[in-house]
């Protein structure tokens, strides 16, 4: 029997996208704002989450999914704040996918939650390609990184709704221009909402939390 050519036209990520759509429906049904946090390793995702959750849990029901290549260290740090936390160990993969997120959502009391943070694997490239079913992506960048990061990794900035600059308390010690970094980010995505924060001094955290709260569908 000879070879036969069949037309397919199927997106390689269609399986991921189908599961992402199902996750999105679960979040929407429960009236949850689901935030996919993306950044390089070491930008301060966990630290920002610690300070944010510690305060926001006073007026919102917050849940967390913490992704890492290996270890449950981030989840262990976050669980101390008395909020439901699920961990995903990707076992080598450089990003979370929709199936992994869907697999742990059952462990969170979704109906009781207003806001779910998904802390993606530290990586500014791959996580931006995989829809998890989140309401929005938020990209973090610390002031110890290059101001041109938005130009080098445009997809993460183009697909995000907000940019959180972290570690602003280090500004006196590093050659980093907030204006240049923000201008670079806005040149990629003019709709990007930007926050300048420090988890240590709590600079900018109030504004960041108020904005997040305003995005929650239940409120």
């Amino acid at each position, binding site marked *: 029997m000879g*070879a036969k050519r069949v*037309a397919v036209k199927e997106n*390689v*990520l269609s399986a991921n996208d189908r599961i992402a759509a199902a996750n999105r429906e679960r979040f929407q049904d429960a009236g949850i704002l689901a935030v996919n946090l993306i950044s390089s390793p070491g930008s301060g995702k966990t630290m920002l989450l610690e300070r944010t959750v510690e305060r926001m849990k006073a007026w919102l029901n917050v849940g967390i999914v913490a992704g890492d290549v290996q270890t449950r260290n981030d989840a262990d740090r976050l669980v101390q704040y008395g909020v439901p936390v699920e961990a995903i160990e990707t076992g080598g993969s450089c990003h979370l996918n929709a199936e992994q997120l869907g697999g742990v959502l059952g462990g969170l009391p979704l109906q009781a939650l207003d806001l779910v943070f998904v802390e993606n694997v530290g990586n500014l490239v791959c996580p*931006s*390609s995989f829809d998890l079913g989140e309401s929005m992506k938020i990209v973090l960048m610390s002031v110890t990184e290059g101001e041109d990061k938005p130009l080098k990794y445009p997809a993460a900035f183009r697909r995000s709704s907000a940019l959180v600059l972290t570690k602003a308390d280090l500004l006196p010690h590093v050659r980093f221009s907030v204006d240049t970094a923000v201008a670079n980010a806005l040149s990629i995505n003019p709709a990007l909402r930007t926050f300048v924060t420090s988890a240590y001094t709590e600079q900018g955290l109030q504004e960041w939390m108020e904005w997040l709260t305003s995005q929650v569908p239940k409120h």
Partner: protein
Amino acid sequence: MHELSLALEIRDLCERQLVRHRAARLSGLGLDVGALAGVDLESLRFCLGVVLEERFGDVLCEIRRVPGEAQCLVCTRRFEVVEAPFDCPDCGSRARGVAGGGELQITYLEVE
């Protein structure tokens, strides 16, 4: 960076298509990869070679690179993008959406 995951995803899609077409063997595969899909072609080719051969034996992969096309978010002009920083040739803005070249799609399979 995630080319191995993509190759595994492609292998699974091929498997489902084989069942759908009641075919016994996969001999060829056509793939469109957009220039803005964030995929390294050499790496994908390598990973595909490994995972497809393991499952299906010898498969001829034809990978087509689709050029990147952007649309300026300020003046709406569409233009081809080759190298960063992708400034709009009309108004100079750097803000743009992906209008083409973001695809990562299986276009055909050759089955026996």
